[in-house]
């Protein structure tokens, strides 16, 4: 066993635990957008009230997330384009890589827009107002909405398709039958997460 193997396995694991689980939790919290500004801000600020919040965020989310992202980009350079083989799994293979890059760009913009930006400008705390005014902006609102739509669908796809390949990599789904079963389950998870995310966004659309 060498670092080559270990790093790839850590890359595969971090995509699900903790980054994937954080995505699910994060999308769940956004459903509070339907509860109005006061409740939403209370829920989000409630997390940051903990003195350990920043540490939890860095250790559980940022380090695994950026390791997964940047190592994933390194892995992408090992891929060769093989256009003659038009199989569905092969399409998913490329969508996984393209969505990974797209989602990384989205996440960087998302962190800047919702976390670092408000911290620097001193408007931190009024999360609901910050988000809804960004969406309602007569000029940039349409772009913000489009970016969120693509970012959310990319993240949800990358996670649910990642679940599918995770089960192959770690030897959880062995037979072709079970691999198809896992693919169907991951597609259902994709629909549920995408539906939940779009429903949450509809509150401030």
């Amino acid at each position, binding site marked *: 066993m060498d670092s*080559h193997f270990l790093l790839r396995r850590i890359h595969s694991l971090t995509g699900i635990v903790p980054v994937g689980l954080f995505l699910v939790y994060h999308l769940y919290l956004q459903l509070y957008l339907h509860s109005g500004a006061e409740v939403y801000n209370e829920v989000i600020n409630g997390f940051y009230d903990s003195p350990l919040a920043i540490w939890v965020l860095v250790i559980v989310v940022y380090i695994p997330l950026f390791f997964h992202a940047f190592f994933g980009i390194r892995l992408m350079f090992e891929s*060769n384009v093989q256009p*003659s*083989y038009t199989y569905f*799994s*092969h399409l998913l293979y490329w969508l996984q890589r393209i969505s990974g890059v797209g989602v990384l760009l989205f996440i960087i913009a998302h962190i800047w827009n919702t976390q670092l930006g408000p911290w620097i400008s001193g408007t931190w705390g009024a999360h609901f107002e910050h988000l809804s005014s960004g969406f309602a902006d007569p000029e940039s609102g349409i772009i913000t909405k489009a970016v969120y739509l693509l970012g959310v669908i990319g993240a949800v796809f990358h996670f649910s398709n990642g679940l599918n390949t995770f089960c*192959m990599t770690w*030897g959880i789904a*062995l037979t*072709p039958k079970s691999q198809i079963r896992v693919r169907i389950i991951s597609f259902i998870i994709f629909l549920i997460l995408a539906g939940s995310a779009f429903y949450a966004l509809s509150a401030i659309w």
Partner: protein
Amino acid sequence: MPDTVTFKIKRQDTETSGSYWETFIIPYIPNSNVISCLMDIQANPVNAKGEEVAPVVWESNCLEEVCGACTMLINGKVHQSCSALVDKLEKPIRLEPMSKFPVVRDLTVDRSRMFDALKKVQAWVAADGYHDLGPGDRLSQSHQETAYKLSECMTCGCCVEACPQYSSDNNFLGAAAISQTRLFNMHPTAKNIADERLDTLMQEGGIADCGNAQNCVEACPKSIPLTESIAEMGRQVSGKLWRNIFKA
């Protein structure tokens, strides 16, 4: 029915020279395959311009899709040329050498890397000495069925040719060799060195280089369940990873 078939063949004179395309038009024969057409070209090596050229070089042995030697790209997709029927192919038929291996000449490639991979994973039954070891273990019907399917691999190269992770820049073992580790790790005698095979799979170029594109299983002419083999070996190396961390 047309009375001729057109072949566009990607040729290369030596290992180091550049490649070029040459067109050949040969008489159409019903039920012919790509090899029989290559034989016609060999018998009368005149290209579409009417020039007499060096005959096209290719490799073949069994002519019944068992040896894997005549594997090449036919209309851009990898397949054995012996079992590629002219009637079923889009015309003109494009023939190219496999892209993942060094070209020796024309359609002949050097697949040594695949055989080296089999050596690396020790894809054999290691029997030490000539003394009588007694009768082998009795194997169940289901074991035989699984093992027989895996043993049909002819190391032709279709799986690695179609694989987006296998390239001349890396040293990935490829699906065929990973599937052979599964075959020998389930064999009652060969599994004595199962751990050594797992060690090889857990090194650079091993199973972690698989990107789950699953082209291998689609491209395999013998319909070997390659993704099942990769997942099974993924499970075995996961177990070894666990043992390395908590039990070593």
